[in-house]
């Protein structure tokens, strides 16, 4: 039993990363409806509970910009010039779609998890045991 939980601890970070990967795009598009620069965005996302590395975020912003989902301007008003990103119209459109997908996924997973935990025997009549023909 102890062995099994150790395996789980090993596997967990990888699975969590997989699960979170796509959500960073969603989070960026949502947060950048208010224009912001990389470092500030990093702080905003962290404050909102979205855990993302700077290593991942900066290249991602570039990619989204290349895809036309973000626009950028260099703000030189302050002594330190900063690159400000903002969600474009296409980005807003994508945000709506991705958010709808996220909601649908959430509902689907919720019903799956709750259904499974409600039934006492996991492989009941709906899932007959497989027989190898």
């Amino acid at each position, binding site marked *: 039993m102890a062995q099994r939980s150790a395996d789980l601890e090993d596997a967990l970070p990888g699975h969590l990363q997989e699960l979170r990967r796509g959500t960073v795009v969603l989070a960026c598009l949502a947060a950048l409806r208010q224009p912001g620069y990389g470092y500030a965005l990093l702080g905003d996302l962290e404050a909102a509970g979205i855990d993302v590395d700077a290593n991942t975020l*900066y*290249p991602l912003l570039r990619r989204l910009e290349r895809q036309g989902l973000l626009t950028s301007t*260099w703000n030189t008003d302050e002594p330190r010039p900063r*690159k400000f990103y903002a969600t474009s119209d296409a980005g807003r459109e994508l945000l709506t779609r991705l958010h709808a997908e996220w909601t649908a996924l959430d509902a689907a997973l919720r019903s799956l998890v709750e259904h499974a935990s409600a039934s006492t025997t996991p492989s009941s009549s709906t899932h007959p045991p497989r027989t190898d023909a």
Partner: protein
Amino acid sequence: MTTANSARDPKPDTEACQTLTDRYVAVATRGLPEEQRRDVEAELRATVADMVEAKLAAAADAADPASIEDTERAALRELGDPERLADAYRDSGPYLIGPTVYRSWRQVLRTLLPVVPPLSGGATMLARLLAGDDPISALLFGLWVAFVVACNVALWVTVVFAWVERSDSPDVAAMKQDAGADWDVDRLPSVPTGGRVPTGEAVGSIVAALLTIAFLLWQRDGGPFAGLDAGPLLDPQVWDLWLPVVVVVLAAGVVLEMVRLRVGTQRWVAVAAIALNVVVAVPFVLVLLGQPLLNVEVMDALWPGRDAADGTLDAALAAGVLLVLGWDCVEEVRAVDASHRSA
């Protein structure tokens, strides 16, 4: 978009002036197109400066005066490995040939490597033998050429694919996209119907055939008895006619074994192998019928007092060869039978 004008001169005069940030940014933006590189560099510098500022502010609250360089160090550590950052900016992983072109690369190598090096090696060996080299050095030279050709094929195919992997051209991008897109159920390859061919056996046959060809060419100068200066080891009257035929048939046998390694045990391969054996058998049957096998002059030089009309040795050798050929035919039939039974 206004162009980036970096706060500091990005090119320090001497090595001593380089800050950690300079070095970090240089690694992280390596390999980017110049325009993009400058933009990314300015953004990263601003980020590091922001991070350092935030850390210094936090440290000041804690009344723990940290040096600027220590703070910079901590900030860069937090940003992480600049190589990984560079990979992410370039949108490519730390690999030579990525998943999109890997299969095409493997396919090209699998097509070229079994064909080009053996052909060039074999051709070289044959040319050397015809030019009068002894078979051992001809064989070694042929193997060396095959090895060098194999290395070159592998190198240049890899170089081209590595370039394709890194090319920004839209044509290449489209090609990469196509590579996996046009798959269809119809393209499933058929599994070799026959049983698996023991690779060792096939390779053994190929080597044996090549050695035999080498020997047949070598013996024209007397082979191991070249010192006697009595002409070819095999009787020239019979073998001037049959030698080219046997050499060609043996070469065909080599090709057939290669095909067999590819397609598995198939009836038509066995039939072809038996047919080749039958052709090789013809001159030896003629020997059994009274034709000479060995060159009389060489035999006389070896055994000066022997009975010149005695054909026992010739007949015994021919019978031995025919037995081997016959046994080979039986094996072919058995292999096909076995694969049919297991299928």
